[in-house]
């Protein structure tokens, strides 16, 4: 719970956490708070392309308008949050777990193991992530599980480098040497002493990873390679809005704003945590 306290101490991180909490609440309770069925297409000809704040023929107000099939945009955004947030979160969990494993094993064993693992990490890091994603998605048919796994398996490399540095730093501490002297096995040393102490930087990496994954998932959906329709996702909403960009610019604009809010929220939490942990790092981070 230390982490949450640290987050709330930093104003930026608190704002970011607030944004994310709001989005999470909307996602969880979407079936109950969404004003309409996100898939319903009532009388397409008369309800399509309604602008925000207009009243539909059935007398209900469409706060954010409707899309080209007459579906309620606000409801679709709410349901879309479920896919975006869950993909982002699960992919980041995979990435952090995998990265932490690779990085800490490299640091713990050193020598040839470290050399091979870190060379592998650098190799994977050299590829543009979207290119990797495209190559992988091209091979298999897109599904929720595939998108999560592929995003997780292409996002672990920065975490691995971070974890290696952290674990090496902790191993230089007297208490790590004391544990070794007391006869702790490498596994025990890692699980009981090293990882708990390296936890917070991993959470920072996780927060930044969630934001990245959300943006990339929407991008894959935008290309028609993400979580498949019919369910709304922010990415496929932007894609469908692209076809009606002139007539109804709000269809593409609004889901994009949702993506921006989620990504900025994650980055705020990550940056804020980073600053709270290490005041010397003034919110700077390679893009």
């Amino acid at each position: 719970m230390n982490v949450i306290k640290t987050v709330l101490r930093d104003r930026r991180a608190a704002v970011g956490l607030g944004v994310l909490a709001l989005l999470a609440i909307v996602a969880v309770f979407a079936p109950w708070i969404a004003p309409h069925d996100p898939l319903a297409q009532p009388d397409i000809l008369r309800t399509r392309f309604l602008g925000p704040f207009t009243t539909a023929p059935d007398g209900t107000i469409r706060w954010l308008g409707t899309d080209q099939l007459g579906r309620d945009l606000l409801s679709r955004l709410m349901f879309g949050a479920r896919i975006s947030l869950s993909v982002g979160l699960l992919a980041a969990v995979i990435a952090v777990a995998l990265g932490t494993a690779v990085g800490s094993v490299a640091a713990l064993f050193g020598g040839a193991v470290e050399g091979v693992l870190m060379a592998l990490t650098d190799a994977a890091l050299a590829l543009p992530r979207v290119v990797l994603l495209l190559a992988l998605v091209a091979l298999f048919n897109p599904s929720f599980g595939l998108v999560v796994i592929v995003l997780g398996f292409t996002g672990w490399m920065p975490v691995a480098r971070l974890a290696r540095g952290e674990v090496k730093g902790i191993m230089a501490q007297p208490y790590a040497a004391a544990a070794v002297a007391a006869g702790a096995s490498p596994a025990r040393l890692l699980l009981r002493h090293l990882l708990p102490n390296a936890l917070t930087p991993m959470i920072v990496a996780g927060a930044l990873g969630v934001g990245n994954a959300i943006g990339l998932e929407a991008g894959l959906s935008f290309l028609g390679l993400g979580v498949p329709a019919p369910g709304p996702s922010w990415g496929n909403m932007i894609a469908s809005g692209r076809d009606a960009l002139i007539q109804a610019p709000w269809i593409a604009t609004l889901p994009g704003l949702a993506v921006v809010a989620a990504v900025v929220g994650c980055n705020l939490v990550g940056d804020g945590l980073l600053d709270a942990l290490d005041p010397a790092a003034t919110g700077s981070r390679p893009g």
Partner: protein
Amino acid sequence: MIRRITLRLVSGFGLVLAVVTITFVLINLAPGDPARLWVGPAAGQAELESARHALGLDRPLPVRYAAWLAGFTRGDWGTSLAQQRPVSRVLRDALPYTVLLSAGSLLLTYLGGIIVGMVQAVKRRSGTDTAITVATLIVYGMPAYWLALILVLVFAFGAARFGWPGWLQFPALGASGLDADFLSPGRQLLDRLEHLALPLTTLALIGVAGTARYVRGALVDVRDRDFVRTARAKGLSPWHIETRHVMRNGLIPVVTLMGLSLPALFSGAVFVEVIFAWPGIGREMVAAVGARDYPVVMAATAVFAALVIIGNLAADLLYAVVDPRLRRSAR
């Protein structure tokens, strides 16, 4: 220094080899039969078998890998299944467009990012600094494909609808106008620049936002150092301090950032090429993914990896130029 470069070159080749090997294995593990794709769903078993033989798919995997790798290193990258022309031709046609777009946005990104970050560092904790910080945070969070659509909306459709002056209207699709072949060379250049404007702006805006955040942090860090205080105490002019003391030290890590940011740049370029129908490698790759055109997917992956590695090598060399400590220790 020469040893360092040689080492980097060798490891770079190893990296490209590793990337294409992994792609080869993955593609051959994947479900779906390229031969079936080639002959079409109506073909019978005999035709399928002969297609498998013609494509070499009936040979064991290591043999296929050796044959494919031998061809790949000779520049024989196979034939595109969808376009029925050599993959090397497809990519050679597309490469200049991707390089033009990426190099242009890299230039604008660092020029703009350094200027904006510098302004922020000099005016630290002022209203300007806060405003720019918020703006860069938001722009940096924007997905490239979405920002691209917004720019199209404003500067292609909006500009036309609201009758903005011609210099504020930009084409939203392609790399040249329909009449480009009939224009004079000067006009052709202008036409290309007009078509480049929106894709380039999309990538550069996001790049500037990311770089400025980093540059601001790096410069703020240096400005608090003792040697800067000494320079101030000596009564040097603020301009002299900023350019000679703060920037020269603060911008060294930015060169490393340039190499590290290449994968992200190419990732963004893939989306931007698709949206603006910019005929580069990213657009070819997305089309190939849709058509299950594996030879093109593999070769495009390798080309992107090679571009990143070349870029990193260039950043390494530049690093040696800007950091005198490295030059001396390498000697």
